[in-house]
């Protein structure tokens, strides 16, 4: 298409000729806009008698010209504009019913810090209120007055019990193997490789079993809690539950927390056992320790305290993972994207809180001498 223009006594004449399909000539447009900027322009005329076929690109051009003109208080005069083109142009130029909400003001540095502080405070308050309501729900459960559907509990239990056995076994077997390997290299220099058995037994039962189960379950079950509840939020199912007067905590969160908190200690037991087995594979298979000897040293090293400390960790991790999963699920946004974000946050925060909790527990047990 050919676009020509001519400025004559403060009146701009624009002529469109030929077929205007896929009109994408930025140089002409820039030049035209420059002329439109001329001071004291009093009128714009657009002649389209010879315009052939056209598409949205021409409409976009006219739309642009009209908007630049209106910024100068002018409105172009159209001549021989095809009927349908002028109708569309009018439609596009119809003022919005809603005025522009131009609240994109710049904040000063102090205001930004303030806003951040308020946001952090709000997040903390939200988290604490979630904790309070969930504890209340657990309290109701212990008193037997919570409305939890047993089917939900069983479904949750199924998902985090035997379905997780395979991956937990595999990973903790490998961790036991690795512990034994790393330990053996050091112990061998003292000719003390027999203590690999004690190392693995103590390491797995006291902490490594629980940590491995925690990480696996955060990625597996915590993520699935956040995704499921988040999708329910997107589908407005949570709104429906609330308006029907159900307590979200009783209905959605309680079954998940109880299921995971019950199963993680059991999975920890399994991980302990598999880890010791992995250690034995190295000890017996590679270091030439006899099976009976390995068994003897392992049992010798095992004691109830380490065992219980491990299980206690598992219990705490179960609570943390299910709380994080449910919290980010319930606070999920309303679109597909936010479900993804909620899932990521649930897993990352669960792992971070587990590490923090481990630090605290270790410190407290140290002080108590356990």
């Amino acid at each position, binding site marked *: 298409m050919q676009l020509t223009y001519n400025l004559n006594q403060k009146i701009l004449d624009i002529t469109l000729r030929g077929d205007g399909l896929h009109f994408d000539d*930025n140089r002409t447009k820039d030049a035209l806009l420059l002329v439109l900027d001329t001071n004291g322009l009093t009128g714009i005329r657009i002649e389209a008698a010879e315009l052939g076929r056209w598409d949205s690109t021409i409409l976009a051009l006219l*739309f*642009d010209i009209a908007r630049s003109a209106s910024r100068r208080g002018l409105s172009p005069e159209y001549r021989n504009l095809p009927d349908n*083109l002028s109708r569309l142009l009018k439609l596009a130029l119809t003022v919005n*019913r809603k005025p522009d909400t131009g609240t994109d003001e710049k904040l000063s540095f102090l205001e930004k810090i303030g806003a951040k502080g308020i946001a952090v405070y709000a997040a903390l308050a939200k988290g604490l209120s979630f904790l309070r309501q969930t504890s209340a729900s657990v309290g109701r459960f212990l008193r037997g007055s919570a409305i939890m559907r047993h089917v939900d509990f069983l479904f949750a239990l199924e998902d985090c019990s035997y379905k997780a056995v395979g991956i937990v076994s595999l990973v903790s077997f490998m961790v036991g193997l690795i512990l034994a390997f790393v330990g053996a290299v050091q112990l061998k220099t003292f000719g003390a490789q027999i203590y690999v058995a004690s190392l693995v037994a103590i390491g797995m039962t006291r902490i490594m079993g629980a940590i491995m189960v925690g990480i696996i379950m955060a990625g597996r079950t915590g993520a699935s809690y956040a995704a499921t509840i988040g999708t329910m939020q997107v589908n407005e199912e949570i709104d429906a539950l609330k308006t029907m007067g159900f307590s979200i905590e009783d209905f959605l969160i309680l079954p998940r927390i109880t299921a995971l908190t019950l199963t993680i200690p059991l999975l920890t037991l399994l991980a302990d056992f598999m880890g010791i087995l992995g250690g034995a594979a190295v000890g017996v298979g590679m270091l030439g320790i006899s099976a009976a000897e390995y068994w003897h040293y392992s049992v010798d090293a095992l004691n109830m305290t380490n065992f219980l400390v491990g299980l206690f960790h598992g219990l705490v991790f179960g609570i943390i993972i299910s709380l994080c999963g449910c919290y980010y699920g319930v606070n999920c946004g309303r679109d*597909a994207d936010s479900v993804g974000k909620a899932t990521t946050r649930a897993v990352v925060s669960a792992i971070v809180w587990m590490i923090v909790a481990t630090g605290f527990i270790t410190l407290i047990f140290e002080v108590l001498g356990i």
Partner: protein
Amino acid sequence: MTQQPVINVRNLTIAYGDFVLLKNIAFQVRKGDIFVIMGGSGCGKSSLLRVLTGLTPAASGSITIDGINFAAATPENKEKIMHRCGILYQSGALFSSMTLAENIALPLRQYTNYSDRLIRELTELKLALVGLRGFGEFYPSEISGGMKKRAGLARALALDPEIVYFDEPSAGLDPISSRLLDDLILDINQSLGTTIVLVTHELASIFNIGTDSIFLDASLKGISATGNPKELLKNPPNDQIRQFLTRGDK
């Protein structure tokens, strides 16, 4: 308005496995028509749209769009035809991780080699056409249902399609928004000559803007009436259609 058919459906059968939904149906959509597909819930209107837009294959039969057999077309030809069609889904189906402007720019970036500036101008234009000027930087989660539908329409119009399909555009809209959407459909139909295929239950829309229609009947697994909706109301061919068009008046 020419009488040449843009969509020609012959002997079309739609089935899910053994469950036959529509059997051997045939109809034509002429260029520039606003073609309404009516029928009770579950009679297969959405399924028919899915077949017409190539989302699911038909069990048998042929669909020709502009003389090209859609069902038997090569993938490239199929894609070419698809570019000439726009679709507005029930909920707008905007991509939630993109702003409205990015949603509309997406097909332009993908299927044209327009400059960034032209794409931006076109995006602004399409938003303005559907009455959403200045909303380009909003995310779908930040706007109302009616606005989502209009934004979905803007995206459907991005490539200047010749045919636009609508699946129950007024579902979930208040009467005023629904009326505005009707006006918009009519405007686009009249000024761009776009052929519109519309699934709707909204009687007001059917009579206001429909120029041709078919009425699907689940018990017949086929079409029980065709023609201009106003004519159908004047001379209903059977009782079911009269009841549908008069909201069950006896």
